[in-house]
């Protein structure tokens, strides 16, 4: 191998390494929104009632959310693999604790966890976790056009 070929090989290798590192960063740095929903849902023709009072924690260090019926909250997470801990006390004062792991698809911005579905069938992730595409935004009074500002000294204050 000539010196020229070796140099080329090292350069190509470096570019490939940087590319792989970029892909790795994309995976570990991707942010997702996890919606936690405590509304009555219908699964396979069966209506699952919203839970009376439930504590939910997404991730080990996530905030513990106390949720009552018809409440939807959210947790913002980074990365694909996460855990959700659900603590629910039923009418007979029996405490049910579920700590489950789930995976968010890389390009999915939002997923929704249905708490009644989770309590019914915690083993089947696809039963309680679904991709959420978001609702179409409501017509607002905001102007349809936004003036683009070109100001030479705009960055001055922040500098």
């Amino acid at each position, binding site marked *: 191998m000539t010196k020229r070929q070796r140099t080329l090989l090292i350069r190509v290798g470096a570019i490939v390494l940087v590319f792989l590192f*970029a892909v790795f960063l994309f995976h570990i740095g*991707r942010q997702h929104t996890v919606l936690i929903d405590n509304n009555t849902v219908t699964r396979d023709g069966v209506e699952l009632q919203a839970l009376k009072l439930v504590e939910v924690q997404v991730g080990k260090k996530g905030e513990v959310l106390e949720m009552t019926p018809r409440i939807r909250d959210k947790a913002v997470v980074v990365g694909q693999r996460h855990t959700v801990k659900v603590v629910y006390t039923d009418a007979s004062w029996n405490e049910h604790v579920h700590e489950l792991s789930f995976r968010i698809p890389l390009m999915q911005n939002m997923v929704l966890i249905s708490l009644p579905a989770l309590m019914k069938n915690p083993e089947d992730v696809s039963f309680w976790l679904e991709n959420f595409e978001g609702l179409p935004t409501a017509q607002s009074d905001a*102007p349809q056009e*936004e003036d*683009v500002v*070109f100001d030479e000294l*705009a*960055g*001055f204050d922040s500098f």
Partner: protein
Amino acid sequence: MRELSTKQKILRFMANNTVPLLFVVIIAFGVPLSGYSPTYLAGEVISRISRNTFLIVSLLIPILAGMGLNFGMTLGAMAGQIGLIFTTDWGIVGIPGILLAMIVSTPLSILLGWWCGKILNMAKGREMVTSYIIGFFMNGIYQLVVLYGMGPLIKIISPNLLLPRGYGIRNTVNLIGIRKSLDNFLMIRIGGVPIPVGTFLVIALLSVFILWFKKTKLGQDMRAVGQDMEVARAAGIRVEYTRIMSIIISTVLAGYGMIIYLHNIGTLNTYNSHMQIGMFSVAALLVGGATVASAKIRNVFLGVVLFHLMFIVSPMAGKRLIGQAQLGEYFRVFVSYGVITTSLVLYEVRKKRERGMSGLALAQDQEVTS
């Protein structure tokens, strides 16, 4: 050579450090007038050191290669901003978001730096004004790409980034996902003043890199080219290649610097953030005692501290002095441009004086030998 008296030494020191001394005087008056507490000032200065130093260090390499102050660093800043637009669109947050933005900006910076270097090689001796105008020209291309290309040609996933008409990036991009993530990494507090150790480590690494780079073959070549291009060429150094490399390195570092700068602020002003960044970085470096032909790491740090202390205290000092903060604002703009003009004039005066003195010395030598 005769020994200089103490008075002559002081005068020479003052002549060589006119701009930093002028700033020390301004700050000596401005700080008590502003009424700011030392803790507040220390916090502000440290925050600005972490925000701006990387950008200013990017100017050192072209000075080493004799290409003067690289106003074309704006090109790198634009590349950095494009990197940030993409990572924000992809939803990459935290330190991975910063690193990914840097990776995305790198090929753009290399391409722009290479192109800028090629043009500067055609404009030898007028590099500063040429790079300044290249910055304006490239700004037009940047606006075209960001305002009309992003959306229809370059896919943008997030509708939040796009203007209501469906293409073009909004005036401001919220960088909340990466805001201060590097600063908060290893953040400590000393006497109530937050110290972003993570960012300082990155700046220290860059400073070490610059010092190491000066000792490498390429660094030595740049020094030789900077001293005399024809002598360097005669010694077998590829002058044009070396000059292009210096601009490429500067542009890439400017791109990284812009990402660090904007990550600290937390908002990207899409069409304006980069516009004056070259001007202010150059001004800060000159305030630190650097010249068109010589700049060191210590000039960067001294410049950031003095220039930004002036920036911080001048509005309040102006308000207390005549009851209008606006005076301070004008003063900041005036000083930024003024310091560059003063430095350039002083540099030319010094160069002429040295040329005159060496001519006199040569004439004396010839008289002695004849």
